[in-house]
């Protein structure tokens, strides 16, 4: 902001905003008080920039890194980092941060919102009323009771824990699967997702997407979940074998689904559009002003720490 004044040097560190053309970084004006920003890999600044902010799920690949020989830090703007080549970053000595717990409550809220909507048919009933059918058709089909449902959380991290805490207040019971059993957690643990599914009425997918968790919800798990079972996905689309899920839903072999993420966003299998036991959301779990405030704080804190050689706030750690 002092670029026109020759007497004041611009001490703001240089940061690349790495984003797909259609992605915007919200609240960017906060950043420019602390950092000098540019957003193109073709810029002459690319050769000297030491830190980048990755907007949403914009991919950071080996090719991206090849354009940025001085890069030492990738700052993610989400909890998930499956769009970043973490192995390649490690190889090049580039640190990576995610948003830590900043958005966990928002995502947990959203998972519960989707569950309530699917089981009690909120969106479907709203459509029914708006179409003017209520006076003609009388009663709307009954929904499912939430109290007493067995919730199976796939991935009991920060988000999963917040989901569990909320659903316990509705009279649900909670069990989970994670890479490792968590000794301080009292909920029952299942070593694999199939066994969790057998013992659950609702599966809530909250884990990170890695090579191991790709399609962790597959035909076998969906069969184990059963005709009266429900699935809620607020993780990543690729955690679920989408083709299989669509088949199960269309053929009535599963009770219903609430989905905020899909394998190939923004494409959503059209077969789902006709189903009333499915709630579809365009990847909005963190789209609140509160979330973006929290995101900004974490992003700025990580960058400031980096540029003053202090420990990063939320470095990505494989659990």
């Amino acid at each position, binding site marked *: 902001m002092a670029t026109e004044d020759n007497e004041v040097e611009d001490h703001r560190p240089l940061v690349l905003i790495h984003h797909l053309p*259609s992605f915007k970084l919200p609240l960017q004006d906060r950043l420019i008080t602390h950092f000098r920003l540019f957003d193109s890999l073709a810029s002459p600044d690319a050769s000297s920039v030491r830190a980048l902010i990755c907007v949403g799920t914009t991919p950071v690949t080996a090719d991206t890194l090849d354009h940025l020989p001085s890069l030492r830090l990738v700052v993610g703007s989400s909890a998930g980092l499956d769009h970043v080549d973490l192995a390649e970053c490690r190889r090049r000595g580039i640190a990576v941060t995610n948003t830590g717990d900043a958005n966990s409550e928002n995502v947990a*809220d959203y998972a519960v919102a989707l569950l309530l909507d699917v089981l009690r048919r909120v969106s479907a009933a709203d459509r029914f009323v708006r179409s003017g059918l209520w006076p003609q058709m009388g009663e709307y089909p009954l929904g499912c009771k939430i109290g007493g449902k067995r919730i199976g959380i796939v991935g009991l991290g920060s988000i999963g824990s917040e989901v569990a805490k909320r659903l316990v207040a509705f009279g649900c019971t909670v069990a989970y699967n994670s890479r490792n059993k968590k000794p301080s957690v009292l909920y029952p643990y299942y070593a694999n997702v199939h066994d969790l599914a057998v013992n659950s009425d609702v599966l809530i997918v909250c884990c990170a997407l890695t090579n191991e968790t790709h399609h962790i919800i597959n035909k076998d798990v969906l069969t184990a979940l059963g005709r009266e079972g429900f699935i809620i996905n607020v993780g990543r689309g690729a955690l679920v074998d989408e083709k299989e899920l669509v088949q199960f839903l269309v053929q009535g072999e599963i009770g219903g689904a609430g989905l905020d993420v899909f394998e190939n966003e923004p494409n959503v299998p059209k077969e789902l559009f006709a189903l009333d036991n499915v709630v*579809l959301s365009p990847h909005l779990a963190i*789209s609140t002003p509160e979330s973006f405030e929290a995101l900004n704080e974490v992003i700025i804190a990580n960058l400031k720490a980096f540029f003053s050689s202090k420990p990063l706030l939320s470095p990505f750690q494989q659990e």
Partner: protein
Amino acid sequence: MESIDVLMLCPMISYLEQELDRRFNVLKLWTAPEKSQFIKDHSATIRAIAGDGGHGADAEMIEALPRLEIVSSFSVGVDKIDLEKCREKGIRVTYTPDVLTDEVADLAIGLIMAVLRRLCESDRYVRSGKWKKGDFKLTTKFTGKTVGIIGLGRIGMAIAKRAEAFNCPICYYSRTEKPDTKYKYYPSVLELASNCEILVVACSLTAETRHIVNREVMNALGPKGVLINIGRGPHIDEPELVSALVEGRLGGAGLDVYEHEPEVPEELFGLENVVLLPHVGTATVETRKAMADLVVGNLEAHFSNKPLLTPLV
């Protein structure tokens, strides 16, 4: 008991109709071409009424049935029953508390979340096939918002318990302050509305609580406030609600009940900050069955001279 005449006021779930048919001689009022004539024709033998939240026994009906002993309602709301008249004539009244408390509270939270996070609108958007990558819409976080509850009875308490799991501060208005709770009390609905972000109507409908949410209250709740009604339609001044929403003086609304069900003001159909449900607060298989069992159980108990299960009068 097959000889006992029970007047059923409206169609109800088939499970209830079957169970009543097995035990009593059920007279189905809605099948009569002329309702008042039907009642006259059977007035010498009708000893019980089975009604629901929307169909009860008013003074006129009670007077027309000299042998009426009990009114058993398939609901917890009894605003359609003339309780005073029943007391006067020694007529018992039963309802269905507790079995539906959790269900209604669950739906209240479901409505809050659907309004705040724009679930219905997002779902419509995806189904339209118009989702483009990078598009996002800002909605509002629920965790931490202050929730104000009108009526801290069974349902109000159940709503509070759930909202607390989202770290929401809770405040309330009730006819009298409740000494045992830690929630903040406001002595008027207006003050409550001025001090919360989400206002939930969870009280019973009486002459005093009709239009308890009026224009003033809605203005106090404000352009960022959200109003949720899982009570009865007449709790809210509906025409005022419509103009408050259309003019942006009220931030949003989640409604399960309306002043003239099943009529819903059409001006609401085009608003994205509103969620409209067709009175489904108790609409799960499990709860409706539990409610039906209470209706039947109360009638059986009465006619076997046993204590009523859930009497109100």
